[in-house]
């Protein structure tokens, strides 16, 4: 069977460049918020550093989102905050990131604005934790809701949060936080297990497409994470490899998944 068109269906990739980058960065932003929230709630001495990092990653991610939008100069951006759309993953993501950013900001500002000291840190930490978790979970959900795009199956719900944690823990290891190592090893182990399982959950033409378009990056990312898992004696190298693997994996899943289910 061959096909020919007058006019063109809109089959070009719709999430490219900065938008795909967002799917990577939001993991770092949300993950870092979760990490900072936990450290805050536990009154960990490292917490300030991670609060700054969380704030930085959230701002960076939001900047990338804004810069990547062709509506960047329009008022419509504010409708993200003026509307109530609980069925939309992106709406949740917006509020998750914003509330995390707000609580990070409020805690950090306590140093200079005495008035803010009245807000209990536990409350801000909890808000940050919830916001961070939402931001952590939302990319996977935003992909899974597209039933028509079979590469983005339910595995995304796990792969995206886990790789996000893999990334932020790797950053923590690179910064020399020893407590991160145990969790990083765990995250890497879970990631490797997911990577082995995921292709088995794909079927038919979705699988063929995935194998054709994504296998190289997928396998490379998998190997990087696996090597990181084995190399835990060299924490910085392991962290670097894990981070690279997770970044590549997220990027690739977003790019390769933009394929319609066969049938049209």
């Amino acid at each position, binding site marked *: 069977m*061959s096909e*020919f068109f*007058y*006019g063109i269906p809109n089959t070009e990739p719709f999430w490219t460049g900065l938008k795909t980058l967002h799917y990577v960065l939001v993991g770092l932003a949300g993950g870092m918020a979760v990490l900072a929230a936990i450290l805050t709630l536990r009154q960990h001495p490292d917490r300030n550093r991670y609060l700054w990092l969380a704030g930085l990653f959230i701002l960076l991610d939001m900047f990338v989102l804004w810069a990547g939008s062709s509506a960047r100069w*329009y*008022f*419509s951006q504010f*409708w993200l905050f003026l509307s109530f759309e609980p069925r939309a993953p992106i709406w949740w993501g917006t509020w998750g990131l914003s509330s995390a950013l707000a609580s990070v900001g409020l805690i950090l500002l306590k140093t200079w604005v005495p008035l803010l000291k009245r807000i209990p840190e536990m409350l801000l930490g909890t808000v940050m934790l919830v916001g961070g978790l939402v931001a952590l979970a939302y990319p996977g959900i935003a992909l899974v809701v597209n039933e028509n795009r079979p590469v983005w199956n339910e595995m995304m719900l796990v792969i995206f949060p886990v790789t996000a944690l893999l990334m932020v823990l790797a950053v923590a290891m690179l910064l020399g936080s020893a407590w991160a190592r145990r969790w990083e090893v765990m995250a890497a182990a879970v990631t490797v297990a997911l990577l082995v399982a995921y292709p088995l959950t794909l079927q038919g033409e979705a699988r063929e497409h995935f194998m054709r378009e994504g296998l190289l990056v997928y396998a490379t990312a998998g190997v990087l994470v696996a090597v990181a898992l084995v190399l835990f004696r060299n924490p910085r190298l392991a962290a670097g490899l894990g981070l690279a693997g997770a970044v590549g994996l997220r990027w690739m899943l977003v790019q390769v998944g933009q394929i319609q289910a066969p049938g049209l």
Partner: protein
Amino acid sequence: MKLQRRSFIKLSAAAVGAMGVGGVAVMSNRAKASPWYHKEVKTVYSICENCFWRCGVKVSVVGNRVYKADGYKENPKSRGMLCPRGQGAPAQTYDPDRLKKPLIRVEGSERGSGQYREASWEEALDYIAKKMLALKESHGTESIAFFGHGTGDFWFVDFLPAAWGSPNAAKPSVSLCTAPREVAAQYTFGRAIGGHEPIDWPNSKYIVLIGHHIGEDTHNTQLQEFSEARKNGAKLVVVDPRFSTAAAKADRWLPIKPGTDTALLLAWIHVLVSENLYDREYVEKYTLGMDKLIPHVKDFTPEWAEQITEIPAGVIRDVAREMAAQKPRAILPPTRHTVWYGNDTQRMRASYILNVLLGNYGREGGFYIAMPPFLEAFPTPPLPLVPAAGGCAGPAAVTEQPEGFRPRADAGKFFAQSTAIQELIEPMITGKPYPIRGLFAYGISMFHTIPNVPRTREAIKNLDLYVAIDVLPKEHVMWADVILPEATFLERYDDFVTVAHKTPFVQARFPAHEPLWDTKPGWWIARELGKRIGLEQFFPWQTFEEYLNTRLMSVGLDLETMRQMGTMVQRGRPWLTDWEKEGRLPFNTTSGKIEIYSEAFAAAGFDPLPKYEEPQPVPQGYYRLLYGRSPVHTFARTQNNPVLMEQESTNAVWLNTEEAARLGFKRGDWAFMINPDGMREGPLPVRVTERIRKDAVYITHGFGHKGKGLSLAYGRGACDAHLQNHYTLDRISGGAGLRNNFVRLEKAPRPRLRSVVQIIRERRG
């Protein structure tokens, strides 16, 4: 059954009104905030110029811009609907590549080198007039030829040459298109087929199309009525070496060996005759020569035809019986482009004879009898010559040469009175029978239309004067000495278009807005030039409104009334019964009857009854080059239209799957097409398909533009005319048979072409 457009749903306007204004519109400067249809829209009647079917349209104008063209129900051409070319037609007017000012070729520069300077209309017209008068002095008025195509061609190919005194006026729509079918019709029925084929599609029950591109040529009304026929349950048989769009809709597809159609037609005639299935009563009443046809077709059995056509004898017999069972509501509609193999008049005669045996001419479900509408010409002093270029409505019926002028330069090369544009090229080179030293090209695509392009280029180089009147800088335009930029169809009045039809009608074109740039309507150019070459007496009108109004007065109308109507429909006499009521018959043949046997052909030394002649065989290693139409393009006229180019930006060469495998072509590959003389076209994409026979390849006509000023069209696809170095002259009609041309394919690297989308975005600035 006439299909009715429905009045439909009740829609609450409020629900829709919410769209676009819902929410806070602050800071929103988006284009969609004020679409054209929310502005003050003026509606103007016009006639579409994006193909030669010429549908009546009404266009929506906001300021100096037409946003939309639509058909209107009162117009018998569009009947409220439009094809893609018509829908996209307004875009041409706003093409930044348009010719914007008169141009004069820089003195001393070579033709084709494209060096021009801008000039005023005054200077440009004076320049042309001076050269014309000099040519008249040195070589006579006949030494200037006039070529043209389009609604405005009346001024440049009919009126001006006749007033000036040159019989050498021609349109490609005759000898490169309809000549064989029109000549055959004249000598069979004594009537033209005409530009609006008089087929009663909706009432037909059995339709046989031979090489017909319906659905691909998108002739609007024809496509509508074809669809009605199919909805009404007509059976459809398509004879074509290619699985065309029509074939895709057919009940039977007969993939005939190219060039053998006459054998198939003769075999069908044989079956109707030998099995006594034809309409005896009709034949006896209206025709002459059946007695000679019966012995003539005795040996043309389906078995004989099977050997030639590669269509099984059983199928041939079945189709003949099926069509006979539906007679007279069975029809073989003539195609428009009939210049195929050089024996085309005879093929068309065979087709008409078959139609006559089915008794369908002048009967419902067959051919209706088209009458031209009544409308007087503008009164002028008698022209020295009678306009003789003809058109797709057939050759002009000029049989006598007026005294004091030399006969047309193609005289004697063929039998009929049609003009053969391709035969007027040679005299530009050889000076025989007499020299043609000047040329006007109005709206045609010389290098895309006339076969043997190298010869045309050489001829143009030889000329003393070459004037092009056009809208776009097509390649041949940029060879001219003087280029006159015409206003587009949306920007100008034109003479009325009169259409011979079941209900004859007159349609009008009104300007939607002032001409953009420094462009002028064709009638203005013709008149201003006429004044400068001593023809002022033939342009007695002061304004064009006066010209149009005067013509309308002959039918009791005036221009302002017509402005509100667009179209005026008259009554016709479509059926034989209408004529018989008046005690006469419509056949203007010598005998007054349908001539199955042509005495005139016999007297001139041609076969009085059609015979099958073998087409030139395909040389080893080559394919027969077939060509056709794309539904979104018209010939070589629309390839710079951004809207249409976005739909289809190149042609592709259709190659049979097995042949592709043999040659190593895969989907997505590119190829050059090369003819036996080494002329190369392309690269163009290869369309690997099951939809074509193994002995032929196919491209759509019109791509492969070489005019660098056409930013969208330039360098895309391949041009069939550039591969058609040879043609087989039809000695009866003067038609140039184009399908005895052959090509081979060579692999080509994928060219580095920028996407049309990218170019269009940039052109907009």
